[in-house]
């Protein structure tokens, strides 16, 4: 009870806040799985542009890209709405949290701030990225490579890649903590694994970008 509900003699029983927490967690888990799957699919270009094209063809032929793409966009938006409940929107909140992080010099506290900051960048960049790719179907390795070699998209991806991977990596760790899967006993083990996973995906992403940079644009296709 607080001053705004004090006049409600019997506060309503509701399960909403628990359900929203579960939904936030589920939206997070789905996005983690999506991001990892996405990374593995795109990085197939490292093996060869033909492999990537075949996968892209499959996803478009089955309409998974045309339907799934917007669905993922929707999922990101829903996740944003849910997670935004926790974000420090008020100046007083963000000031308090930043001051607190500086005072504590505590890695996990800083990581939450990193998650909030990366979130806002992803919110803008993910939708630009999705718009560009999904309004220019079919997806082919050569088109992607052209964007990176001549379209000026390289810096864009060099920013989005580490930011998205850190957001997801931190989120993965914190879902485990919040729901008691990561316990005091195995916390350090999970943290190390999480850093390794995060680093691993960033490296795969970078290799993929390098592959696009040097992919010949006018042969084969």
């Amino acid at each position, binding site marked *: *009870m607080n001053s705004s509900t004090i006049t409600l003699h019997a506060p309503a029983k509701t399960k909403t806040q628990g359900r929203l927490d579960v939904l936030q967690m589920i939206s997070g888990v789905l996005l983690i799985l999506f991001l990892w799957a996405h990374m593995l699919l795109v990085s197939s270009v490292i093996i060869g542009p033909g492999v990537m094209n075949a996968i892209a063809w499959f996803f478009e032929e089955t309409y998974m890209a045309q339907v799934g793409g917007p669905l993922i966009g929707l999922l990101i938006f829903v996740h944003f709405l849910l997670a935004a*409940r926790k974000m420090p929107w008020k100046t007083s909140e963000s000031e*308090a949290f930043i001051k607190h992080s500086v005072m504590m010099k505590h890695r996990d506290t800083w990581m939450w701030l990193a998650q909030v900051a990366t979130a806002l960048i992803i919110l803008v960049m993910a939708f630009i990225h999705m718009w560009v790719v999904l309004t220019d179907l079919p997806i082919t390795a050569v088109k992607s490579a052209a964007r990176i070699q001549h379209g000026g998209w390289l810096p864009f991806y060099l920013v989005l890649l580490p930011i998205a991977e850190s957001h997801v990596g931190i989120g993965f760790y914190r879902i485990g*903590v*919040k729901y008691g899967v990561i316990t005091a006993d195995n916390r350090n083990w999970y943290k190390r694994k999480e850093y390794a996973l995060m680093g691993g995906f960033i490296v795969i992403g970078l290799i993929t970008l390098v592959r696009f940079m040097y992919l010949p644009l006018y042969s084969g296709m």
Partner: protein
Amino acid sequence: MSRRLHIEVFRYNPLDPESKPHMQSFYVNEYDSMTLFIALNIIRDQHDPTLQFDFCCRAGICGSCGMVINGRPGLACHTQTKDLPEHIVLHPLPVFKLIGDLSVDTGVWFRDAGTRIEAWVHNDHDSFDPTQEEARMENALANEIFELDRCVECGCCIAACGTARMRTDFLGAASIARVARFYLDPRDERNVENYYEVIGNDQGVFGCMGLLACEDVCPKHIPLQDQLGIMRRMLALHSVKGILPKALIEKLAHKGCCHENHKS
């Protein structure tokens, strides 16, 4: 080899209109097994009798000497100066009401939290018979309850919590672990639904963002991380009863650490 400690202390007396918040430096010669509590007493005895800070038991039992020590909340009596650098910076615990200098009022905060979580044994007994023998309890269970009862309400976990610092109505790890203590206790006849009513919200378990500063600073090493996880999972699953299949909820409820011995 003894060091000369440079102790920088936050000074402010809210009752004195002339007083402005500022830092004041003191110099104290360190000696063997000196604690911050001793150093502060030396300062008060020899340098400035107006310095305000709290202590009582000087043994990590009363919980009154919590303060921010070089950025981290901790107990002054529990902190040896040899574990700190030569330059020590002391602030009062944030979140709580400042009484003056390093002294804060944790009592009002904890009483309010205790009322909100209804930190007492609930049952439907008509009356209490003081002549009756107390109900017996397994030793292992008694130990488990005691493990959580060791909290001295020093407030370090609250002051270390970014969520509590942003949101004044957040109950914090100590309160949630306190509910977990009642959840374990068979004499408390509240069910999951009842616990959900007190901490199943964004001021309670769902407000926690898993930053784990509470776990990392608690001077009594109360297993806060694990209790926060257990309670959140239990109450989150409770909120989706009837939506997710029963078998799945059962399975998730018993994964990892759990309070298995509690009737639910």
